[in-house]
């Protein structure tokens, strides 16, 4: 996966970068920005940078990111190398870089990682505050994940977020007697029952699926007003709200397509594309895979997106997986690193990247809501403010490593799955989830 930008590549990328630069200025023109002086960051002599980030979602995610990096290299003369590593591996590699004090200067890691390694990172407040002022402020989750907990100091630069609203077939929902997805739990259950009756069932992952499984489990808990931990980080999952959510799932589960207990992350995409499943929750990848496949065009046209049903909380009970950049203290060129992050977030670079990613990443700086990508397809609307969702992994507690571990260990997913499978009563399942969560929040 690791790729080094050689001189030859730079030349080739340079040409591409020029094209993107022209495109960038054109596209970025509609991004409103305030006239704010950029922080003064004298670049160290002989600076070089190594950047580590997760593998791409879609091809432009990588090509435009590389082109932007080449542009940075051409503009500043700082030799910069970007390595792409697998999704599952980047956490471990971040940990190793942090522990050993060597390796990449910048890591674009996941959500809470900057807070986990807070002591090993340099503060980025100057860059973050400048960007915030210039581009209309940071979104809710951008702000939440960028700052060190309980302080106003920035230790991360959130690049984007990926969220999973409902994707459904308009024709099926209409046939079931609904115009859109109801926000009320009772009505929503009726919709799913009606879908089951006309043999066009819904399906949500209840297997060990890190993204989809946790997204669904979080929705169940949050939409009932429950939460994993309270404001102080004390485990509070064993509550009457959780029991209500578990009882609700018992009614919801029989309406699903069979086999969701063994679903992994790709399963719902496959079942939806095959026309077996008519309503699910997913990132925009589901829609784009269909849209780009001529054979599936009809399904894509019939597909609509909507935020997850509000339930009792009056706002979408969903979060967003944040791509979060951090600069390690072991970097010999902190100013160069900060300059790089700032450069990548400026409209001339960021907007083409955002546009190229087709909505896979939702922006974190509010001004980018004006980006052309969001008007390119009306079905992307729900992803536009994906990082303004008011929930986060480990809600309501402080951002912590423990919340990530609970998600990686499928604690909530398995709580629901055990009740759906009839292996445990709601009370037993909630108690078990509490016991397991306590192990991490201690």
């Amino acid at each position, binding site marked *: 996966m690791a790729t080094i930008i050689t001189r030859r590549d730079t030349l080739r990328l340079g040409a591409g970068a020029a094209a993107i630069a022209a495109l960038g200025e054109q596209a970025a023109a509609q991004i409103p920005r305030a006239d704010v002086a950029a922080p003064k960051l004298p670049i160290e002599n002989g600076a070089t940078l190594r950047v580590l980030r997760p593998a791409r979602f879609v091809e432009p995610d990588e090509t435009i990111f590389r082109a932007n990096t080449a542009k940075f290299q051409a503009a500043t003369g700082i030799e910069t190398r970007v390595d792409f590593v697998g999704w599952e591996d980047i956490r471990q590699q971040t940990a190793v870089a942090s522990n050993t004090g060597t390796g990449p200067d910048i890591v674009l890691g996941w959500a809470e990682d900057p807070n986990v390694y807070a002591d090993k990172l340099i503060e980025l407040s100057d860059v973050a505050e400048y960007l915030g002022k210039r581009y209309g402020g940071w979104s809710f989750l951008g702000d939440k994940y960028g700052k060190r907990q309980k302080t106003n100091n920035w230790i991360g630069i959130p690049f984007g977020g990926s969220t999973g609203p409902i994707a459904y077939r308009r024709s099926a929902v209409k046939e079931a007697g609904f115009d859109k997805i109801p926000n009320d739990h009772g009505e929503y259950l009726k919709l799913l029952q009606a879908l089951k009756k006309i043999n066009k069932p819904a399906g949500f992952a209840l*297997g060990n699926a*890190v993204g989809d499984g946790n997204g669904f489990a979080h929705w169940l808990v949050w939409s009932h007003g429950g939460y994993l931990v309270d404001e102080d980080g004390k485990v509070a999952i064993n509550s009457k709200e959780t029991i209500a959510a578990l009882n609700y799932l018992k009614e919801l589960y029989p309406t699903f397509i069979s*086999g969701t*207990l063994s679903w*992994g992350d790709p*399963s719902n995409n496959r079942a939806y594309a095959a026309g077996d499943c008519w309503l699910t929750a997913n990132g925009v990848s589901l829609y784009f895979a269909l849209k780009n496949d001529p054979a599936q065009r009809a399904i894509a046209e019939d597909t609509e997106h909507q935020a997850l049903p509000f339930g009792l909380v009056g706002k979408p009970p969903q979060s967003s997986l944040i791509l979060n950049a951090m600069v390690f203290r072991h970097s010999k060129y902190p100013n160069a690193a900060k300059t790089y992050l700032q450069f990548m977030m400026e409209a001339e670079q960021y907007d083409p990247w955002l546009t190229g990613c087709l909505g896979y990443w939702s922006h974190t700086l509010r001004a980018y809501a004006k980006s052309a990508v969001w008007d390119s397809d009306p079905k992307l609307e729900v992803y536009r403010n994906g990082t303004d969702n008011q929930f986060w992994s480990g809600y309501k507690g402080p951002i912590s490593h423990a919340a990530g571990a609970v998600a*990686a260990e499928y604690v909530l997913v398995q709580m629901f799955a055990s009740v759906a499978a009839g292996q445990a009563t709601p009370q037993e399942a909630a108690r078990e989830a509490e016991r397991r969560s306590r192990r991490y929040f201690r």
Partner: protein
Amino acid sequence: MTATFDIASLPRKRTEQSWLVRLFDYKPFLVTICLLPAAGLLLVFLTYPLGLGIWLAFTDTTIGRDGKWIGLENFEYLFEDTIFWQAVFYSVFYTSVATVGKFGLGLWLALLLNNHLPFKSILRAIILLPWIVPTVLSAIAFWWIYDPQFSIISYVAVDVLGVRDKYFDFLGSAWPARWSLIAANVWRGIPFVAISLLAGLQTISPTLYEAALIDGATGWQRIRFITFPLLLPILAIVMTFSIIFTFSDFQLVYAITRGGPVNSTHLMATLAFQRGIPGGNLGEGAAIAVSMIPFLVFATLFSYFALARRKWQQGESND
């Protein structure tokens, strides 16, 4: 003068030479020198990781943070952890059922292959295929075969033959998922057993069978009193390997179910990985891995000392 010089210097040279030679003739030194590379490799690549694993099991190390010594706390937690006990149960169950299956079918296959068949070598090569294919690839194939929506078995049963009206839900509930994984493991393990036992079968001298035939032995008696006892030594070795491989299996289970549904198919190895790497709890993961050691030691000792005993092989009276 010069002569005395020469005479004085010569013996000294000779002793110098013989000092090196003596050193290399000194057996303990020579043994040490020769063993050093091997011992070094073992220390670096076997003892150190094993020791580190055992050490980690007694600490609260997580990914990203060094741990401190916490004694038996990890084991105490695991002792009360139903998921851990489920994994222990399934590891033992998976190993015993899959081993019986593999050896039953493998022995049968070996006996068939031992006959004179046309295209014998090609047949034997084909039989080895499941074992040659990287495990992850066969795991992915089985993952599709067991898929709730796109299973070929469901397709044939429902859409082609019409004998069922619902798709099979192989991995959706605990017991079907467990049996499905065992079936995949048996499929994968048969060739190894069959080919190893075939090698053993071919060392048995045909004169024994001829003698038995003259004595009027039936087919079953020939297997029971000639084939089986003479095969036992190799059976013991193959079984030891097979038990160890099966017990510490990881790829099949992780690629097909990730331990689901609701942890019912976690083996100790997959649970150790799940807790240690994605869960980030290295100490606890190591503790689970260390808990596998007694089972493996027991299995090895059982195979060596029980199956390889002469009395079992050649009857009670034969010492």
